[in-house]
C-alpha cells in the first residue's frame, strides 16, 4: 500500500445544475459548486484553505478568482491544464499537500461552459488540439482533425477489427449509462430511456460513432472537499477515504509508432497503471463493488476497463452487453449516467458520484427514498432508488469504488475510494 493510503478523505461534494445554457460565467458556476460542497461537508467557507482546479486552455476561472469571489484566504492554490484524467491526479496531489501540511481542507473543482463556451467536440477554431495528439507541425488541422470523436473513432475502428466488437457493444454502453441516468434526478436524461432503435437511428458524428456514442456537453461546475483522516471523523457525512490510484500515467501515441512500446490502439496509458493502482490501494479487482470509467464516448470505458485489468482485451463490450455493469449486477458502472447521460464534466462528477454511493447516500428521487440523506434506501429500481448495493446482498452498501479517468493513449488516471480507511 502507499504511505498515504487511507490518510485523507473526501468529506463534501457538490455541483450546480447541469445546464444546456447556463447564461452564467464559469466564476458564477464555480462559486456555487464550491459553496455546495463545503456546506455538504458541514464546514464553513472560512475552513477552506486550499484550492485546486483544472481547465482546458483557459476555458475557466482559477482557484484564486474563486477564492477571492468567496471571500476566502487560502494557504495553497494551483490550477492545472487538462481535461480527463485531471480529477484523479489532483486527488493524488491533494493527498500529498494535506499530509505535508500545506493546507488543511482543500477544494478540488472544475467549472466549465462546455456547451455554450469552449466545446471540446466543437469544430471551431477555439477547439482543442486532438486528444490523441497526432499532430506534426499542425498537420492534424490541415487534414481535418480537430475533435476527440475523430481520434477515438480511429482507435475504435481498429479495436473492432482486432476483437470483433462493434455497434451492439457500443450501444450496450450507451444504454447502460442511460439506464442509470433515468434514475438520477440531476441527469439531463432523467426518466428518458434509450432504446437500441433510438441509438441506431441517430445521426453519424464520426463513423463508427453515432450521436449517442458521444458525451453530452454541458455548462456545469462540480467540486469536492478533501481533508486529513483525523479531521474527517466528526463532519456531517461518513468520510470516503482515498486508498490510492494512479496519476496521469502516460504512454506513446499509437498514431506514430515510434517503436519502443510497440503501441497498439488498445495499449493506451491505463495499461501501464493496472498493477500500480492495486499496489497503491491494497485492493484488487474483486474488491471493487462499483466503478466509473471516463465515458467521453461509449468506446472509452471499454479500453479503460481492459487497460486497468478488469477484463481481458476485447472483452469489455461483451461484458456490458451481458449486463454486468447495470445496477444490481456484479459491478455497477457509471451509476449517475455520467458523461453520456448525466452531462459532461471532464470526469469530476464520477468522483462526486462515487463518494455519494459509498456513503450510502445516493440522492434518489424523494418519491422513492424520502430519507436518502440519512442513508435509508428502498433499493426498488422501479420506484426510482439508485443506491448501489453490494452484489448478491439484500441491502448491504458498497465498500470500495474505482474511478477510471480518461481513455486516451497518452494519459490516464485512476482512483480507489472506500468507506474504510484500510483495505484490510
Amino acid at each position, binding site marked *: 500500500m502507499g504511505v498515504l493510503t487511507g490518510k485523507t478523505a473526501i468529506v463534501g461534494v457538490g455541483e450546480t445544475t447541469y445546464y444546456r445554457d447556463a447564461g452564467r460565467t464559469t466564476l458564477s458556476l464555480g462559486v456555487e459548486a464550491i459553496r455546495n460542497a463545503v456546506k455538504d461537508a458541514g464546514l464553513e467557507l472560512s475552513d477552506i484553505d486550499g484550492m485546486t482546479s483544472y481547465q482546458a486552455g483557459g476555458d475557466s476561472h482559477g482557484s484564486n478568482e474563486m477564492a477571492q469571489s468567496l471571500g476566502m484566504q487560502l494557504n495553497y492554490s494551483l490550477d492545472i491544464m487538462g481535461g480527463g484524467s485531471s480529477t484523479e491526479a489532483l486527488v493524488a496531489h491533494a493527498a500529498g499537500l494535506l499530509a505535508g501540511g500545506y493546507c488543511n481542507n482543500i477544494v478540488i473543482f472544475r467549472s466549465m461552459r462546455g456547451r455554450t463556451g469552449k466545446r471540446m467536440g466543437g469544430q471551431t*477554431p477555439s477547439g482543442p488540439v486532438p486528444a490523441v495528439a497526432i499532430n506534426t507541425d499542425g498537420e492534424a488541422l490541415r487534414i481535418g482533425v480537430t475533435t476527440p470523436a475523430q*481520434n477515438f473513432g480511429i482507435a475504435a475502428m481498429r479495436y473492432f477489427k482486432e476483437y470483433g466488437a462493434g455497434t451492439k457493444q457500443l450501444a450496450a454502453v450507451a444504454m447502460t449509462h442511460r439506464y442509470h441516468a433515468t434514475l438520477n434526478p440531476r441527469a439531463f436524461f432523467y426518466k428518458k430511456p434509450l432504446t437500441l432503435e433510438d441509438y441506431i437511428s441517430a445521426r453519424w458524428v464520426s463513423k463508427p460513432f453515432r450521436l449517442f456514442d458521444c458525451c453530452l456537453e454541458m455548462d456545469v461546475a462540480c467540486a469536492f472537499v478533501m481533508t486529513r483522516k483525523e479531521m474527517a471523523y466528526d463532519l456531517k457525512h461518513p468520510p470516503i477515504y482515498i486508498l490510492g490510484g494512479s496519476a496521469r500515467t502516460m504512454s506513446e501515441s499509437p498514431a506514430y*509508432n515510434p517503436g519502443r512500446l510497440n503501441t497498439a490502439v488498445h495499449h493506451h496509458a491505463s495499461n501501464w497503471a493496472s498493477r500500480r493502482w492495486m499496489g497503491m490501494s491494497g485492493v484488487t479487482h474483486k474488491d471493487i463493488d462499483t466503478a466509473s470509467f471516463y465515458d467521453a464516448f461509449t468506446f472509452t470505458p471499454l479500453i479503460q476497463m481492459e487497460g486497468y485489468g478488469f477484463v481481458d482485451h476485447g472483452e469489455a463490450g461483451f461484458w456490458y452487453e451481458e449486463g454486468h455493469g447495470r445496477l444490481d449486477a456484479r459491478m455497477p458502472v457509471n451509476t449517475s449516467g455520467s458523461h453520456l447521460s448525466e452531462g459532461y464534466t471532464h470526469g469530476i462528477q464520477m468522483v462526486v458520484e462515487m463518494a455519494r454511493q459509498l456513503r450510502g447516500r445516493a440522492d434518489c428521487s424523494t418519491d422513492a427514498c424520502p430519507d436518502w440523506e440519512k442513508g435509508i434506501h428502498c433499493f426498488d429500481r422501479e420506484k426510482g432508488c439508485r443506491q448501489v448495493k453490494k452484489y448478491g446482498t439484500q441491502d448491504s452498501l458498497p465498500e470500495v469504488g474505482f474511478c477510471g479517468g480518461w481513455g486516451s493513449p497518452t494519459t490516464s488516471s485512476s482512483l480507489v475510494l472506500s468507506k474504510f480507511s484500510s483495505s484490510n
Partner: protein
Amino acid sequence: MTQSKPLPTPTPETQPYWDSCKSHAMKLPRCKSCSQFHFYPRALCPHCWSMDLEWVTASGKGKIYSYVISHRPAPGFQDDVPYIIGVVELDEGVRLMTNIVGVIPEPKNIWVGMDVSVEYEDVSETITLPTYKPI
C-alpha cells in the same frame, strides 16, 4: 466568410520532411546507429536514443492501420464532409496520420489492412501534403 484550411508550420527538425514532400519524394528519418525508422521527425532516435540520424526516401507504400469517417467538418472542411482520416502504417514500419483519398467514404470501400500508396497535394507555395489512395 468561408474559413480556409490551416497550414502546417515546419520547424527546423521537420523542414527536411516538408521539403521532401514538396519534391514529391517523401523522406523519413532513420537512425544510423540502430537502422530503425521513426516518425514524426525529432532530435534523436526513440529506439536507442542515438542522435546520429539520416533522411531516407520512403517507398510511398503502406497499409491502413485504422480510419474514421468524419461527418462533421473541421474548420475549412465545410465542403469536404464526409471525409476520411486515416492512420497509415508505412512499409518502413512507422505510422502517420493522413487523409485517405480517391475513394467514396463508406466503410464498404475502406478497410483496416488495405494497401495504399502516397499521393501529393500541393496546398501552398511551400507546403505539400502527403495523402494516401487505395492501390
